[in-house]
Structures are given as C-alpha cells and as structure tokens.
C-alpha cells in the first residue's frame, strides 16, 4: 500500500506528468510526419517509390486540421460534457479570418484587377471595402482575428449559456442553432463574405505562392506544430486540477457548485480555448484546401466532427485526433474507390464502431483495464449529462 495520491501532479517533471503512453506515440507520429512528409515530397524525386505526391501533402494537411478541430471538440465534450454541435462555426470563422487575409493578398491580381476590392465585391457592384474588411491585409492582424473572433463568439455565447445554466441537449441544440444562423448569414451576399461562393482563388500567403510545393509543405509542418501545441495545451488543461474540475462538472454539475467552484467560468474558459483551437484549425485549413465557404458552417459538418471524436474515443484527446484522420481518410478513399455506394460503407462503419467499440478506437486499445458491465452507474450519469435524465416525462406530474 503506497498510500493515497502518490501519482498526484507536481511531483514529477511537468512534461512527464503531462503525457501518457499513447500521448508519446501520438507526438512521435505527428513529429515523424512533420519531418518525413515534406522531406519525401521535396527531396525525393517524383518517380521514386518513396516520393510523397503534393496532393497527399495537401490531403494530410487537411486531415491534421480536422484532427485539431476534433481535439478542440474533445476538450469540451470529452472532459466537460459540453456536446457542441456547432464547433464547425469556430472552425469556419477562423477560416474566414484567414480567407480574408488571403483575399486581400490577391491585390490587383483579381479578374477585375481592382486593387482594393475582392472580385466578388466588384462583381456585385460594391464601391468600397466594408469596414470589417479593414486590417485584414496585415498578417498579424489576421492571425489575431483567427483567435479573437472565434474566441469572442465562444465567450459571448458561452457566458450567456453557461450563466443561465443551459446544459445537455439544450446547449447542444443551441450551438447547432448558432452555427445554422451563421450559415444563413454567411450565405447572404449582402454580408460581404462572398455569399455561397465564399472566398477562393488565393494567391499568396506571407508572400509565398500558396500553391507552391514548398509552401504546401510549410503549411503542413505548421499544421503539425499547431496540432502538437494544441495537444499539449489540451493535455495540460485536462491533467491539471482544472481538468479534474471539468470532469467533476461533467459528472455532477450542481455538486461542483456546492464545493464552491464557479461552474460557468470553468466552462467558459474551456469553451473559449476550444473555440480558439478550432479557429486555428480553420485558419490552417483554408490555404491548404483553397476555399472557404458557408457550407463549413453547416450543422452536418459539426456533427461529423463529433463523430470523429466518438469514433476515435471520447475523452482521450489522442483518440479524437485519430478518429478525425481515420474517418476522413476513409471518406477520401471510399469516395474514390466506391463512389456509388460509399455512404453504405461509411454508415456501416459508424454503426459498427458504436456497437463494438463503445469507447472508440483508442478505447479498444486500452480496454482491458476497464471492462464494463451492461449498465454501470457511470453510463447513467452520461445520460443525465445529455439531458436525458429529464427526458423521460411526456407530461409532467401536474400536466
């Protein structure tokens, strides 16, 4: 008997206590990818078997962006029980901030050769740049906005919702309503974000051609770094006492209050950090895929992100990232290989994962530690968290 709490934090060096076994594997894989992929793309000649084609670099870059988004989502969902069905909104806002910067970089090279206005504005007879477009020609400003805009939205939304104790499905559906409202708003051409067509036809980023092979590799590496940083930040948060409080909130929100924790501030902090991470993911995504358009706000996209997390394993961080990469790889592969019936395959995959891997892929790997019975109390607490606890009554007692 070693006594309680020997593994408590603060006794071990920070990094060691921060990262567990699967974390190391994850970091190693991402780091290896960050080094190898550009190397094999740039240094190995095209004919060689080891050459990584540029399109694969772009593809992997996209997956990593999704992985970061999934990570952000897992932080709030896995650890704090906030099932956000609107995280795509933060991703898209980050994307738009970056997109606006990229648009401004086009300068007079647009089809109408207007030095100030992006093509779609000329096209719709806009005479001057709307005020909210100012400043986006500067990268630092845009980068700031990538963090600030999603963060601010999360702050306002979160502050309102958490203070009013909107929880469970109510919160989920409100996040969905939020992203849906943004979707409709960005669709409107009058909003000045290019309407349905969105922002596209980018030329330069920081003076480098976005389509150049080297730029792509650089963007890939930047994404990998962002993912690692995102992982470390998230990991730091969840392993600190803060993370324990988050989990406590997830399990029994009101009990946490009676211990004196301000649940709403804890939630808002997690939500804002998560939104900023999602924003960064979106910002890195845009130059790599070459377009940002309102469909990124579509509720289905956000739901898909939730699904990546679930497939990988909720509440594991690494699992979220893994799920994002795997599902998207599956999608890429299946849409090419089985274009006519890939939805069957994907749908089946989701069903099978839920039935046979209740804790996701990562759960499968670490399963032996916690085999669980059919209905254990913890499942019920999950139910309560989803707001299903109160879902039972069609008519209240007094109806």
């Amino acid at each position, binding site marked *: 008997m070693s006594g*309680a709490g020997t593994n408590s934090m603060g006794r071990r060096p920070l990094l060691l206590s921060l990262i567990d076994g699967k974390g190391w594997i994850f970091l190693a894989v991402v780091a290896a990818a960050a080094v190898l992929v550009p190397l094999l793309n740039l240094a190995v000649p095209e004919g060689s078997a080891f050459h990584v084609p540029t399109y694969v670099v772009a593809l992997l870059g996209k997956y990593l962006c999704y992985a970061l988004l999934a990570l952000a989502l897992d932080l709030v969902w896995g650890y704090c029980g906030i099932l956000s069905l609107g995280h795509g909104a933060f991703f898209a806002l980050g994307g738009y901030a970056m997109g606006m910067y990229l648009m401004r970089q086009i300068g007079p090279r647009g089809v109408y050769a207007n030095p100030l206005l992006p093509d779609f504005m000329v096209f719709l007879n806009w005479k001057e740049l709307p005020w909210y477009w100012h400043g986006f020609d500067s990268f630092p400003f845009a980068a700031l906005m990538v963090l600030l805009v999603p963060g601010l939205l999360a702050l306002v939304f979160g502050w309102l919702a958490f203070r009013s104790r909107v929880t469970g499905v109510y919160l989920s559906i409100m996040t969905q309503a939020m992203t849906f409202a943004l979707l409709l708003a960005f669709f409107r051409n009058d909003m000045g974000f290019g309407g349905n067509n969105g922002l596209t036809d980018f030329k330069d980023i920081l003076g480098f051609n976005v389509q150049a092979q080297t730029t792509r590799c650089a963007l890939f590496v930047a994404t990998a770094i962002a993912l690692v940083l995102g992982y470390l930040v998230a990991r730091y948060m969840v392993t600190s006492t803060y993370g324990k409080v988050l989990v406590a909130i997830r399990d*029994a929100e009101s009990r946490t209050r*009676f211990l004196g924790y301000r649940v709403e501030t804890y939630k808002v902090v997690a939500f804002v950090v998560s939104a900023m991470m999602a924003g960064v993911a979106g910002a890195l995504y845009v130059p790599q895929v070459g377009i940002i358009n309102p469909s990124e706000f579509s509720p289905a996209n956000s739901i898909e992100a939730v699904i990546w997390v679930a497939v990988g394993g909720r509440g594991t961080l690494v699992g979220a990232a893994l799920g994002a990469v795997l599902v998207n790889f599956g999608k890429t592969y299946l849409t090419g290989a089985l274009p006519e019936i890939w939805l069957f395959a994907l749908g089946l995959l989701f069903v099978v994962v839920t039935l046979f891997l209740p804790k996701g892929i990562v759960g499968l790997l670490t399963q032996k530690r916690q085999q669980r019975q059919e209905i254990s109390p*913890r499942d019920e607490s999950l139910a309560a968290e989803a707001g299903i606890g109160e879902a039972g009554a069609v008519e209240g007692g007094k109806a």
Partner: protein
Amino acid sequence: MIPDRGLTNTVLYLDGVSKTFDGFRAINNLALTLEHGEMRAIIGPNGAGKTTMMDIITGKTKPDEGDVYFDGTTDLTTLDEASIANLGIGRKFQKPTVFESHTVADNIRLALKDERGPWSALFGARNRIAPERIEHILEIVRLIDHHERLAADLSHGQKQWLEIGMLLAQDPKLLLVDEPVAGMTDAETADTARLLREIARDHSVVVVEHDMAFVRDLDCKVTVLHEGSVLAEGTIDAVSSNERVIEVYLGR
C-alpha cells in the same frame, strides 16, 4: 430586514422563512438560530422540510420570503451556490452525490479547501496539493484502501463515507450534514457521532438524522421540525418526551 446587533454573533440566522412548491408549503415561517461553534441536531417527520431548509441555506432553493443570514451579516438569499460554499458553508447531501468518474482520492482533492478559480486550478497551488492531506482524510473515513478506485464503483455506504470525507476536506465554518449515518452499522454510527463531536469543537454543525441513538450520542440541542416550522426545541430527553413529537415523529 437587517437582524439586530445581538445576532451578529450567530453563525446562522433564519427568520420567517417560507417556501411553497406548487401550492404546497414545505417551509412555513421557519425561525432558527445557530451560535458560533454550536452543534445542532434537527429531527422531524419525513417531509418536514429539513432538506429543504438546507437547500435554502446553501442557495439551491430561493425562499419565497424570510431572512437567511450567515455570520450575522451576510444575506444568503442573494447569493448563488458557489459563493455560499466559498463563504464557508459545506454540505453533505441526503442522497450521496460524488464525482463518479473520479477516483476516491480525486474526489477528496477537489473538495480540499483552497482557491476555487480556474486560474489557480490551471496554474496555481491547486496542482501542488500535498498527498498527506488527502491521505489523512481518507484514513478518517476508512476509504484509504479504496483511494484508487472510481467513486462509481463504491457501495452505497462507501459513498456516504466519501461524501463525509469531502465535507471534511472542505473544512467549512458551517457544516450541514443530511442523514450521515443512513446505511451505516451501529458501530460506524457511534464512530460518526464521535467524529462530528470532534469537529464541532471548532466548527458549527447542523445534523439531520432519524437515528435517535445517534442523535443522543451527539449530545447537543435538538430542534424538531414539523410541517415546515419548529415544533419543539431542547435537549434530546426533553423533546423525546414531548407528546406532539411522539405523536408525529417517534411513535409509540
């Protein structure tokens, strides 16, 4: 209404408190005062309003009318749960509620008295809590062998103990303990009484129980609630020989 000067010495002051749920008066013009360092046992029939009273004190329920003051000056009716807890009011719930996906040790860790803000939780002292403090408490509540288990896996009685441990860890000025010995063996009950008496030396304690032997062990003033207001108050012997108390509560 601000309580008069003489009451500033009270740790808890309730007066004229009422609470109605859908037309049902659960608390009815309730008055209760608790001195600093006092222990008080509260008994009363099921549904008398004991738990509701605790709900009102801890901010879970807002009273329809009446004064609720802590430390003589702080109006509790205007504060939320977290602020009240941070004033130094801790509570054990009637139905044990613990953090099921945390280990027993972490449950205690989260309860330990310390800064409660997210910054301190992220960067501050909360990450450097000495394990001895946790061990000490687990020792007291006899869960030391279970410290690594998830709270979800505890039996009902073990959860009761864990909640008592969390209350101890919180080290509040005022402890509200709702049915602490339900589901404990007689020996454990006696232990718990001893533990509470010890705590009461430098804390104020309100205990709700139906176990008369336990209440007797506590050896303190007893308040009997009935239909939301005080029916009788006094020593255990005095109240248990009160005819009304026998009629509505103890039975013959």
